[in-house]
């Protein structure tokens, strides 16, 4: 396994830029071939974990129907984030909405785990290293009883924290405390989420001056999506759901900034040998 060498995140960012591997361009960021390979490498590791955990992989479409996001309550919580395309389609703000749409009006014979990846988009207003408008998200979704879902979330939190530490990332687990710009009931939902610890984030330090940025999140939805999308467990019990999300470009950037580009890119090359 890699050994860390001392490199400042600022120096690493300068190197990435000089190598044309991380090129901010207006509201977008263009990734070079080594960074793209690193994104794919992180994804392949997560898929490996997911398949070992019994996940079924879903291939999802590029756009998501606006009606799915309406049903999921996304417009109530984050109306400004949506990237609308033509013909009632939107760039998905997260990959997992495709899963809930797939589960709509079903009755599950047993608890289930799914994984999917999507190119996502959000109208992000905050400028921060690693916070992209267009990004790739891998998610693992699990549906079952409340206790089962809670156990899966704990397992995934432990598994991914250990994975990040093995890679020498400097990370911390924190309860999400998004700024509560939402008003009315949406603010209430966010406060409840915070009190109940429904969203835990794995955060990595991206640069010397910024606050650590979430590279993954571990989420419990209780019965929110099963009620919205009308899916339940076969024994008549209410289905709960949870998900684990990976911002793949953020993972790749955290690796490149922490290890330095050479060592980070070497992770991929070692695999290919």
């Amino acid at each position: 396994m890699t050994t860390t060498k001392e490199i400042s995140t600022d120096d690493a960012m300068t190197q990435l830029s000089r190598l044309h591997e991380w090129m901010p361009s207006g509201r977008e960021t263009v990734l070079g071939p080594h960074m793209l390979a690193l994104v794919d490498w992180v994804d392949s590791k997560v898929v490996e974990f997911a398949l070992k955990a019994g996940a079924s992989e879903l291939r999802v479409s590029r756009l998501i129907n606006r009606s799915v996001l309406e049903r999921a309550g996304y417009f109530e919580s984050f109306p400004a984030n949506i990237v609308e395309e033509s013909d009632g389609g939107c760039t998905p703000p997260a990959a997992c909405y495709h899963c809930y749409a797939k589960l709509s009006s079903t009755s599950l014979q047993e608890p289930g785990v799914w994984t999917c990846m999507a190119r996502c988009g959000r109208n992000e207003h905050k400028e921060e290293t690693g916070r992209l408008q267009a990004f790739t998200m891998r998610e693992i979704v699990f549906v079952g009883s409340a206790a089962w879902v809670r156990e899966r979330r704990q397992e995934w939190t432990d598994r991914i924290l250990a994975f990040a530490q093995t890679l020498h990332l400097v990370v911390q687990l924190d309860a999400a405390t998004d700024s509560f710009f939402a008003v009315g009931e949406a603010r209430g939902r966010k406060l409840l989420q915070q009190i109940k610890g429904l969203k835990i984030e794995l955060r990595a330090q991206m640069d010397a001056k910024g606050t650590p940025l979430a590279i993954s999140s571990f989420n419990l939805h209780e019965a929110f999506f099963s009620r919205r999308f009308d899916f339940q467990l076969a024994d008549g019990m209410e289905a709960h759901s949870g998900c684990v999300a990976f911002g793949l470009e953020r993972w790749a950037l955290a690796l490149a900034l922490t290890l330095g580009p050479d060592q980070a890119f070497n992770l991929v090359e070692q695999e290919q040998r």
Partner: protein
Amino acid sequence: MSDARDKLLDYINGELLADPTRRAAPDTPLFEDGWIDSLKILKLIAYIELMIGRNIPDEEIVMKNFRTVTVIVEHFGSK
């Protein structure tokens, strides 16, 4: 302390829950079994803010400060 606790319990049982089948005691977990929903949490926070005479910053709105009425009163005290 017990004045503040009784006042908060009265508010939760009388106005917030307003459900004769659900009576919170000082140590009842408030955030299990859907007792408090997304509207009730806003009302509860507004009531506690009035009770203590200050705004509660978002960072303080976490389970360890809100688990039960006893915990809320211990953490936030009263005006």
